[in-house]
């Protein structure tokens, strides 16, 4: 073997065992690559199984639409042939009655009715009641069903039925952006009084933006002070930034409830100082103001720390040089110092924005009605309305937004440069 290789590449350097060195090197490199990958593998598998895969599965619910497809198979099969004009033929009605009887026997009719109800409010009870009567119905089923409830003689319910019969659906995503299918399967705006999510997404962005800006405005001077003070003092002041960072989120939210509520510390103080009268105490909680104040406080360290680490690397001599060359302090700051802090501003702002877009606990506790963000609605659909498909769609949109920002963050900051504490 080695002789053949020798013949092909006369100048190949050989390793001790006679194989060409290049080949040996490649083999070693491959082995080292495998070792490196092998070290990462356990965590990779762990994160995939316990975290990433569950999220994929949940997001799948946003397009998955099995209920009608699985529980009303005969009707779905017949409706596939239906052209969507007028009402279907007798065969569809007969299939529906058979499916309803079957679904009632399997106790799945409730789920079918609930699924239909998400698309057409109010049909839940009439589907269950029709299903109850279905067993005793005699052909022609068309007349029997319409007699049981006139809605079966209308085209709308059949169009909805046909659409929901598909295994996969975009309805949840449409609902998440306040759109829906009309009776002709065109995508239209949701009725005015049912439009909420676009507003909520807008509000989430607005609150996050406000929190980010406030953090920047408050964080920049502090970071500057910390970066320019002698280490002896800055270490001490740093504790004031790090303690909130290490304190439980719930503790900090509780503190804000204590401070902001109508009988809270701030209002008591203002009344005592006669700044406001006892009867018109400030409403600082259970609204957007409360959410923004508490979130700004909670996220401020995430702004200060990256700013600080960037400012720390800027040599003070640059400012001194600008000043000695005749720039006034403001000009020197704007032209020389500030541009060098841009990476810190980018890193801090993106981090704060990413974290605030997904906030749930603080808005839920101090947000009241007007301070709720998109996460609160996801939680609502997960726990209260049990509309998991819609929760998944809202979550999917939120996740896409966060991932885009995260990608930007890794491009700007680099994952390696992410620092903690």
């Amino acid at each position: 073997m080695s002789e053949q290789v020798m013949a092909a590449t006369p100048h190949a350097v050989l390793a001790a065992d006679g194989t060409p060195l290049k080949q040996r090197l490649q083999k070693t490199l491959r082995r080292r690559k495998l070792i490196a990958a092998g070290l990462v593998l356990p965590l990779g598998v762990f994160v995939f199984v316990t975290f990433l895969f569950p999220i994929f599965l949940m997001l799948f619910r946003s397009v998955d639409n099995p209920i009608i497809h699985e529980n009303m198979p005969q009707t779905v099969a017949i409706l596939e042939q239906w052209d969507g004009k007028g009402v279907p033929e007798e065969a569809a009605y007969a299939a529906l009655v058979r499916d309803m009887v079957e679904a009632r026997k399997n106790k799945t009719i409730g789920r079918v009715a609930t699924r239909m109800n998400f698309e057409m409010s109010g049909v839940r009870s009439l589907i269950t009641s029709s299903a109850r009567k279905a067993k005793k119905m005699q052909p022609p089923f068309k007349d029997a069903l319409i007699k049981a409830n006139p809605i079966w003689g209308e085209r709308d319910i059949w169009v909805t039925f046909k659409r929901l019969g598909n295994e996969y659906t975009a309805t949840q995503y449409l609902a998440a952006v306040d759109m829906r299918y009309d009776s002709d399967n065109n995508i239209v705006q949701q009725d005015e009084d049912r439009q909420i999510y676009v507003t909520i997404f807008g509000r989430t962005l607005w609150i996050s933006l406000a929190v980010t800006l406030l953090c920047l405005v408050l964080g920049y001077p502090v970071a500057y002070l910390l970066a320019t003070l002698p280490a002896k003092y800055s270490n001490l002041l740093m504790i004031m930034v790090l303690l909130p960072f290490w304190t439980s989120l719930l503790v900090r939210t509780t503190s804000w409830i204590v401070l902001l509520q109508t009988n809270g510390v701030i209002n008591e103080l203002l009344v005592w100082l006669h700044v406001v009268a006892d009867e018109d105490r400030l409403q600082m909680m259970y609204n957007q103001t409360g959410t923004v104040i508490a979130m700004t406080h909670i996220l401020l360290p995430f702004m200060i720390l990256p700013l600080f680490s960037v400012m720390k690397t800027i040599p003070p001599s640059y400012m001194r040089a600008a000043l000695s060359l005749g720039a006034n302090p403001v000009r020197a700051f704007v032209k020389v110092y500030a541009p060098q802090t841009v990476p810190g501003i980018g890193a801090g702002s993106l981090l704060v924005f990413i974290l605030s877009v997904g906030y749930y606990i603080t808005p839920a506790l101090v947000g009241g009605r007007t301070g709720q963000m998109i996460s609160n609605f996801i939680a609502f659909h997960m726990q209260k309305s049990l509309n998991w498909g819609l929760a998944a769609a809202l979550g999917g949109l939120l996740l896409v937004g966060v991932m885009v920002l995260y990608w930007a963050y890794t491009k700007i900051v680099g994952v390696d440069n992410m620092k903690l504490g």
Partner: protein
Amino acid sequence: MLPSYAGPLETTWYYSFRVICALILLFLIAPILVVIPLSFNAEPYFSFTEGMLTLNPDAFSMRWYEDIINNKQWIHSAKNSVIIAFFATIMATTLGTLAALGLSRPEMPYRGAIMGLLISPMIVPLIISGAGMYFFYSHVGLAQTMIGMVLAHAALGTPFVVITVTATLTGFDQSLIRAANNLGATPTYAFFKVTMPLIMPGMISGSLFAFITSFDEVVVALFLSGFEQRTIPRQMWAGIREQISPTILAVATILVMISIALLATLELLRRRNERLRGIV
């Protein structure tokens, strides 16, 4: 700091800047400290009573702390929190350190992409993580179990370990390992004798982060924990939503004390580390 030649404008700015910074720092720290005196309130109020302001000793009491100690639910959730955080930290630290070792090797393929994925539990909004875990863990029978909570919290804690350990490994001289191997050490022996002492500060601060992440975590706990697995934050959440009593403030004060202890540990580690580096 202020040069002797500074004019009146500069002097004014210098002091007003410090006042502004002091106010911002006050904004950061005051809300946390305000709960501490209030937790000793003798009255069931969330505000300072007149007696407290005049430092009348009768206005202060330990009743809310006695409440915690006498309340089985709080004790139970404290136990749960510690158990879950302890095992989650061990898992996160072990897996995270191994991965960081791999990621810091120059031969690691697709480094950026993999790192991005491994950090994602820190970035993905908790409500999405919680919802996803709820469905999957229920499906495989891990919802409302301690094991499920440990696994979920370990997953949320790993990014912190990966980040801190990778940070200590940048600038790590790989030839030290080669030297150890050359001198006859097996890879395992070299790891424990050479690598481990060097990355220890990163491992400790990473594991503290993982611990506090689990210890403070409430969103995933809302989805995954049943009554039996209630943790302190879960219990606090219920307390704040249902009937907010100063007991919550007493719990909050205890948690603030724990944070101070953790922060002090980290600070000591950092100083030790700096000192060691200074000598080398």
